[in-house]
C-alpha cells in the first residue's frame, strides 16, 4: 500500500473536469484507489465520490493505492495534480 499527501495547486480546485481526469486515469489500474480529505474517505474510481470531495485550491489530500500496480497509479495521479490538470 502506498500513501501520498498532495496539495491542490490549480486555482479552480476539484471541479468536474479534474474529477473526470482522475477517475479516467485511476480506472486504468487494477489497484484499489482511495482519496482522503479531512476525515472523509472516498473511492477514487467513483466520479461521484471525487466530485463530492469539493476540494478547493490549497487544500490537502491523501492518495492511497493498494494493489499490484499501486506505484504506477500514484505516479500518474500525482502528475495530474502537479500539472494543475492542464489548467494554467
Amino acid at each position, binding site marked *: 500500500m502506498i500513501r501520498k499527501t498532495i496539495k491542490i495547486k490549480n486555482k479552480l480546485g476539484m471541479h*468536474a473536469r479534474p474529477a*473526470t481526469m482522475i477517475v479516467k486515469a485511476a480506472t486504468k489500474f487494477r489497484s484499489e484507489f482511495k482519496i482522503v480529505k479531512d476525515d472523509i474517505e472516498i473511492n477514487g474510481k467513483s466520479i461521484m465520490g471525487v466530485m463530492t470531495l*469539493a476540494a478547493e485550491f490549497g487544500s490537502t489530500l491523501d492518495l492511497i493505492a493498494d494493489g499490484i500496480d499501486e506505484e504506477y497509479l500514484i505516479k500518474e495521479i500525482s502528475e495530474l495534480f502537479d500539472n494543475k490538470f492542464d489548467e494554467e
Partner: protein
Amino acid sequence: MKKIKGVSVSGGVAIGKVQIINQNKLVIKRHNIDKFEVEEELTKFEDSIEHVVEEIDLLIENISQSKVNKDILEAHKMILKDPDLTANIKKSIKTELLSLEKAIKLHFTDVIELFDNMENDYLSTRSSDYEDVAYRLLSHVLKQNDHLSHEINENAILVMNKISPSMATKVFKKQINGLCMEKGSKNSHSSIIARSMNLPMIVNVESIIDAVKDEDLVILNGNNGDVIVHPDDATIQKYRKFVAKQDEEKSQLLKVVDLPTKTKDNKKIPLMSNIEIPDEIQQVRKVKSEGIGLFRTEFLFMGTNKLPIEEEQFEIYKKVAEECYPNPLVIRTIDIGGDKLTKLLNIEHEVNPNLGCRGIRISLKYDLIFKQQIKAILRANLKGNIKIMFPMISCVAEIKKSKKIIQECSDELKVNKIKHNPNIKIGAMIEIPSAAITSDLLAKECDFLSIGTNDLVQYTMAVDRDNASLSEYYQPSHLSVLRLIKMTIENAHKENIKVALCGEMASEKKYIKLLIGLDVDELSVSPGRFLMVKKEILNTNYEAAAKLDEKIFHALVEV
C-alpha cells in the same frame, strides 16, 4: 376544419404532417420485489447499464460535433460506470428488496440532493448531469421510449407538450417545418432559436395533442398564432400558395449570403448579429455574419434561481469568441431589470422597473456579479476579438467607474496568476437620451458606441413599447430620435470612433436607408432578419440616402 388559437413566438407559415412527441413523466409503479427475483433484477441492472452506455456511445459518434457536448456525454458514461453507483444500487436490491427502478430513483435523488446542497457553485450546477443520466437509465428500465431516441420525420410539424433544452438541440438539427406546443413562452430557449432560424412556432396551443394524431395535415400560421387542424381543400390551396411565395423569398435571400456587405456606391457597412443564447451561433455562421454586435448575457439567469458564476461564463464566452474569430464579439454586460433579480438579491420591489435599478446600475451596485462577469470576459479574450459593452449608461461617470473595475479585475487576475487579456475595447450603449446628449463626452472615454434604439425611442418619447394601446406614440423616426442618433454619430466621428446600431430599428426595412444616410458605421440585427437587412443594404445608394435624409430632416421640422 378547426382553428385553435395559440401565441406565435416565431413567424411564417408552415404546412406539414403532425408528429407528436410525448415527453412523459416517468412513473414508477413497482416498488418492491420478492427474494427470488433478486438475481433477475441484478442482471437487468447490468444489462441496462450496458445498453445505455452503448446508446451514449452512439450519440457521441453521431450527434455531437462540439467538444463541450462530447465531454458532457463522456462524463455521463463515467457516472453510469461509477463503482459506487453499482454498489449502492445492488445493495438496495439485495438487502432492501427494492425494484431496480425504485433503487435507481432513490440513488439519484440522494446524489442530486447532495450536489444541490453543495457550497461550491460550480459543483452544484452539475446535478443536472445526474438528472439526465437518471432519466436515460430509468426510461430504458421502464421501457418507455427515451425522448432522445425519437426519430424525427423530415418536414414534420412537431406537436408536443413542452420542449426541454436538450430536446431542442436535437430537434433543430433536423429539417422540420414547424413547432406547435401546448406550453412554452416567447423567451424560452427553443423560441429564441426558432426565431433565429425563421422556423414557424406557436406555443400555448390548448389541448393540441388531443386534437391531432400522427400524420394528420396541419397548418401553422406563425403570423397570427392560428393552428388549423384538419384543413379543408380550399384552405390547403390558399396556404400552399402562401408557403410557395415564402419559400421563393427565402431562396432569393440566400443569394446574397456570399456577397460583401456594401452599398451600391461601395460604402462598406459591416453587418453583425444580435444573439440571446450561445446556441444561436450556428445560425450566425450560416448567414455569414461579420461578427456578433450584441451578445446579450441575460440567458445566464434563464431557468435558474442561482447567480451566474465566473467559471461557467468563462467557458461560454471563450467558446463563442472562438466561433466568431477573427470577427469581433461584443458582449453586453448583464442588462437585467431589478424585477428579475428581486428574488436573488433581496432587492426591494420597484414601482417603475423601467426607470429603476437595471443595466449598469445593477452592475455597479452589486459589483460582485459584475466582477465575475468582467473576469470571465478578460479570461476568455485570449484571441483578442472580444469587446465589452455597458447597457443603460446615462453619464460619463458610469463609464469611468466601469473602467476602474475592469482594471481591478485585471489586477486581481494578475495577482492570482490567471491567464487573461487586459487589452479590451469598451463601449457604451446609447439608449438613454442623457447619454445621446452627452455623447461628445462619452466618445472621449469609449472605443466605440452602440445605439440601442428600442430603449432610446421608449425613453425619448416616454412611451412603453410593450403597451399596444400606445403604439402610435412609439415612433422610431420621430425627429427627436433622429436628432439624437445623428448627434451621437457626429460626436463619435469627431473622436474617430465607430457607431453601431443594434436596436430593432436596424432590422426594419423602411429604416435601413435612413440609417445608412445618417452615417452609421455598422448594423447589428437578429440572425433571422440578417439576410433581409443585407439585401436592403446592397440596394442602397449611400450618397443618395444621405441627401434624402437632409430633405427628411427639413420636412420633419416643417411639419
